[in-house]
C-alpha cells in the first residue's frame, strides 16, 4: 500500500470515479494511484460490486400504479380549496391593464390598500364568526389544524359521520364545487403527530375517504 497523502483522497474520490462524476483531474489522480496501490484497486472492485448490486436491485423494482390521476385529483382539491385572494385578483386585473410601475397603477394600488385597511377594521369589529357544521352543533371557528378532504362518491352520510367522529373532526366548510370539505381537528396546529395520526386514520378508510391532506 502506498502511504502518500493521495491514498486517503483517492479512497474518498473512488465513488465518484465509479459513478462518473469525478472531475478529469480526480480521474487522472485515481488512475495513476491505482497502478501502485492494491488496497485501492480492491476498494474499487468492491465499489463496482456495490454499484452492480444496487443497479440490479433497482431494476427489480416492482411494478407500480401510475400516480398521475390521483395526483391530479389532489392538486384539483388543493386548488379548489385554496381561495384566490382578492388582492391577487386585483393584481391580475391591474397587471393585464397597466404594467407594474405605471403611475395609474400605483395610485390604484394605494387606493385599494386603503379600502382593504378600512374593510379590515370593519371586519375586526364584527362579532366572532361561527359555522353550522355537519358533525356538531353551532361551533365557533377554532384554531385547530385543518384538513382538506374529499369523500368517495359512494360514501353515505353515516359513514362520513363515523369517519369524522373517529378523528373528532368537524366540518367547517364545504363541499366546494369540486366536492372538497374543510375539516378541523381538535388540538394545536403544530401537533404534527396527532395530525398525522388523524390523516392516517382517514386514509385507512379507503371506501369512505378519497383524498385527505393537511390544509397548507
Amino acid at each position, binding site marked *: 500500500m502506498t502511504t502518500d497523502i493521495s491514498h486517503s483522497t483517492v479512497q474518498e474520490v473512488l465513488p465518484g470515479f465509479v459513478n462518473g462524476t469525478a472531475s478529469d483531474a480526480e480521474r487522472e489522480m485515481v488512475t495513476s494511484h491505482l497502478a501502485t496501490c492494491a488496497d485501492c484497486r480492491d476498494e474499487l472492485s468492491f465499489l463496482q460490486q*456495490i*454499484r452492480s448490486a444496487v443497479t440490479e*436491485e433497482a431494476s427489480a423494482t416492482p411494478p*407500480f*400504479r401510475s*400516480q398521475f390521476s390521483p395526483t391530479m385529483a389532489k392538486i384539483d382539491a388543493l386548488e379548489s380549496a385554496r381561495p384566490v385572494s382578492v388582492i391577487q385578483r386585483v393584481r391580475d386585473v391591474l397587471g393585464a391593464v397597466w404594467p407594474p410601475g405605471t403611475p395609474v397603477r400605483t395610485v390604484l394600488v394605494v387606493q385599494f390598500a386603503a379600502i382593504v385597511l378600512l374593510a379590515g377594521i370593519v371586519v375586526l369589529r364584527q362579532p366572532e364568526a361561527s359555522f353550522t357544521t355537519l358533525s356538531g352543533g353551532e361551533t365557533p371557528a377554532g384554531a385547530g389544524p385543518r384538513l382538506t378532504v374529499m369523500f368517495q362518491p359512494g360514501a353515505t352520510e353515516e359513514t362520513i359521520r363515523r369517519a369524522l367522529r373517529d378523528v373528532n373532526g368537524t366540518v367547517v366548510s364545504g363541499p366546494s364545487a369540486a366536492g372538497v370539505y374543510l375539516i378541523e381537528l381538535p388540538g394545536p396546529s403544530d401537533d404534527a403527530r396527532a395530525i398525522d395520526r388523524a390523516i392516517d386514520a382517514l386514509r385507512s378508510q379507503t371506501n369512505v375517504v378519497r383524498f385527505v391532506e393537511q390544509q397548507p
Partner: protein
Amino acid sequence: MGADDDLHKLWIQQTAGGDRSAFEQLFRAYEKRIFGFLFRMLSNIETAEELTSDVMVEVWKSAPRFRGESRVSTWMFGIARFKALSALRRHESEAVALEDVSEPSDPHETADMGLLRQSTSDQIQRALRTLSPDHRAVIELTFYEEFSYPEIAAILRCPINTVKTRMFHARKRLRDVLSREMAP
C-alpha cells in the same frame, strides 16, 4: 444530462405558471425514479406510491419557488427524501435490523473462498438493507442515481463532509456485514 436538465427546468417554469401539460411531462419523466427511490427506502409499494404522489403535489406547489440553482433531479430527490424520512419517522423507522437479514442462505457456501470478491449480488443487496436510511440514501444516490457529492449534499440538506462521512461508514458497514456473512 445538461440538455435534459434545461428541458426539465423549462417544464418547472411552465408548471409554476399552472401549465398542466408541462407538469405531466415532468411527472412522467420522474415518476419511476422517484417511486424506485422511495420504494427502496421504505420497502413498501403502497407507501412508495402514495409518497410519489405527495412528492409530485409538492413539486406542483413549490414550482414557483424553484430558483434553478440546482438540477431539477436534485431538487425533486430532495423533496422525495424529505417525504421518505417523514414517513419513516411516522412509522417508527422501518429500517431492518442487522440481525434480521444478515443470515446467509448457506453459511458454508463461500466460507473457504476469498472474502469479498465472491460476494454475490444477493449478499450485497441483503447487506444494503442493513444500512440506516441515511447511509442507504448516500449509497443509492451515488451508485444508482449517479449524483455527485455536492448534489447529494443538496438533496440530503447536509454539508458535503457529512455525505463523505456517511459514505465512509456505509462502505465500512457493508464490508463488515459481508465479512461476517462469509466467515466460517
